[in-house]
C-alpha cells in the first residue's frame, strides 16, 4: 500500500514558518493535486515526501514508514526536467534502473517499452539539448515511470512548457494514469490543470501554508463521464468542470487577497 500522509507537518526556515499544521492523506493509487498561491509551500510539501527536505515538526510518511531519504520508490519529476545533459535519452532513463540493480536484458526491455509509451522512439541516442522542452519533460517522466515507482511526485512538471505542449502533456498524463494507476502527488498553480488531472484537489493557504480544503473531483468526473470526451477542450466546456474550477478559483482568490493585506 503506497499512501502519503502528512501528519501535523510544520516547516520553518530561520524562524519564518513556511508550513503549519499540514494534514493530508493521499490514498493508495490516488491522484492528488495541491494548488495554492506562489510561495505557499506546496513544493516544500512535495520535497518532504521525496525525502529532499525534512519537517521541523510533525511526520511525513509514505506507506507506513517515515520518510528519511530520497529514493527510487518515490520518483520525482522536477519542473526544470533535471535531465543529465551529458547522458543520452537512453542513458538518462537507464540510470535509475542500473542503480536498482535491474539485470541488463530486463532494463533494455523496460526502457524500450516506456519510450514507446512516451512517444520517444528513435531518440534514444539524442542528448537533452537537442530536444524540445516538451520532449525533455517526456524523458523526465519516462525516467520516473520506468522505475515502476509506488509513488510519483510531480513538481509543476508542465510549468516550463508552452501552452499547447502543456495541454498535450496533460492529456497524455491522464491517459497514462488510467492505464497504469499509481499514487501521485502533483503540484501546480494552474486551477484548470488541477481539476482536469486530479481525483482530489487540495487547496493550500498562503504562507504559513496549510490545507484549506479538499475537493473531491473524482466522483463528479465519473458521474459526468468526462472520460468519454478525449479532448481537454471538450471537458473544460462542461458545466461540472466550470463549476469545480470556479469553486477552487474563489478559494484561491481569498488567499491572494489575504496575502496582500
Amino acid at each position, binding site marked *: 500500500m503506497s499512501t502519503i500522509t502528512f501528519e501535523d507537518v510544520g516547516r*520553518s526556515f530561520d524562524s519564518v514558518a513556511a508550513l503549519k499544521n499540514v494534514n493530508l492523506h493521499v490514498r493508495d493509487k490516488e491522484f492528488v493535486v495541491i494548488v495554492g498561491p506562489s510561495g505557499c509551500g506546496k513544493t516544500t510539501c512535495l520535497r518532504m515526501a521525496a525525502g529532499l527536505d*525534512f*519537517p*521541523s*515538526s510533525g511526520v511525513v510518511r509514505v506507506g507506513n514508514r517515515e520518510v*528519511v*531519504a530520497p529514493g527510487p520508490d518515490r520518483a520525482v519529476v522536477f519542473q526544470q526536467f533535471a535531465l543529465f545533459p551529458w547522458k543520452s535519452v537512453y542513458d538518462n532513463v537507464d540510470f535509475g534502473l542500473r542503480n536498482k540493480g535491474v539485470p541488463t536484458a530486463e532494463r533494455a526491455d523496460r526502457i524500450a517499452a516506456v519510450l514507446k509509451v512516451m512517444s520517444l522512439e528513435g531518440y534514444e541516442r539524442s542528448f537533452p539539448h537537442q530536444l524540445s522542452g516538451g520532449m525533455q519533460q517526456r524523458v523526465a517522466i519516462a525516467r520516473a515511470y520506468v522505475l515502476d515507482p509506488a509513488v510519483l511526485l510531480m513538481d509543476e512538471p508542465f510549468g516550463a512548457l508552452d501552452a499547447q505542449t502543456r495541454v498535450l502533456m496533460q492529456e497524455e498524463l491522464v491517459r497514462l494514469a488510467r492505464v497504469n494507476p499509481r499514487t501521485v502527488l502533483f503540484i501546480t498553480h494552474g486551477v484548470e490543470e488541477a481539476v482536469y488531472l486530479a481525483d482530489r484537489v487540495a487547496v493550500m493557504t498562503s504562507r504559513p501554508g496549510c490545507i484549506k480544503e479538499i475537493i473531491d473531483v473524482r466522483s463528479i468526473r465519473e458521474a459526468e463521464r468526462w472520460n468519454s470526451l478525449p479532448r481537454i477542450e471538450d471537458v473544460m466546456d462542461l458545466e461540472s468542470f466550470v463549476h469545480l474550477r470556479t469553486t477552487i478559483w474563489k478559494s484561491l482568490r481569498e488567499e491572494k487577497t489575504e496575502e496582500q493585506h
Partner: protein
Amino acid sequence: MRARPAAGPSNVEILVLGVAGLAVFFGLWAALSGFGLVPPRFLPSPAAVAQRMFFLLDHPFASATLPLHVLSSLGRYALGFLLAAAIGVPLGLFMGWYGLLDDIVSPVFNALRFIAPIAWVPFAALWFGTGIGGPIMVIFTGAFPPCLINAYRGARFVDVKFLEAAQTLGASNLRIILEVLLPASIPSIVSGLRVGAGLGWQSLVGAELIVAASGVGYMMVQGQSAVSTPTVLSGMIAIGMVGYCVDLVLREVEALTRRRRGVV
C-alpha cells in the same frame, strides 16, 4: 527543531575537522623532523622555522632584514602592477570600442601572450642588469594580460542597449568610453586586476630568484646557496602571507563593487 537525518556538517563539525586537518599537517611535520626521520637540512622543525623567521625580523641576511626585503619586493611589485593596470585597462577599453585598434593590437598580443613572463627574464637581465627595471618588466609581463583582456571583454560585451541609448542621446566617442563602457566594465576590470595582481606577484618572485640584489626572492636564493632551509621556508611563508593579503584586499574591492551594483 527536529533532528534531520544525514544533513550537512554543522559549523562546530567544520571547525573541528579544520583543526584536525591542521593538526595532522603540523603534527606530521613536527614528527618527521623531531624524530630525526628526515635530516634537519631537508626539513627543519616548525619551531626552527619560526625561530628563524623571528630572527630575520631584525637581523639582516643577504644584506637586509626580512621586513626590508619584503618592502623592496613590494615596491617593485607595486610599480610593475600599476604600470600594467595603467596601460592595460585603458588600452583594453579602447580596443573594445575601436575595432581597428583591436585588429592591430590583438594579433601581436596573442602572439606574445603564450610566452611565460619568466621567459622575459633573460632579456630583463640583459637590459637592466640587477637594477629595478628588470623585475618591473617581468611583473608587467605577468600582470598585463589579465588587465587588458578583462577590460577588453568588459567593453566588448557591454549590453548593446546601453550603447544605443548613449548614441541616440548624442554622446561623443570619448564620452561613451568614459561614461558608458568604463562603468559597465568595472566588474570585469576589477576581476582582471585581481588576477593580474596574483600573476604579477608570482612573476615577481620568479624574477627575484634570478635577477635581483634584494627582495624576498633574492633572500631565498641566498638562503638556498647557504643551505639554510629555515631561511628558505621563512621566505616562502612571507611571500605567501603578502600575496594572500593583497588578494584579500582586492577580493573585498571586488565584493564591494558587486554589492554597489546589486549584482550577484
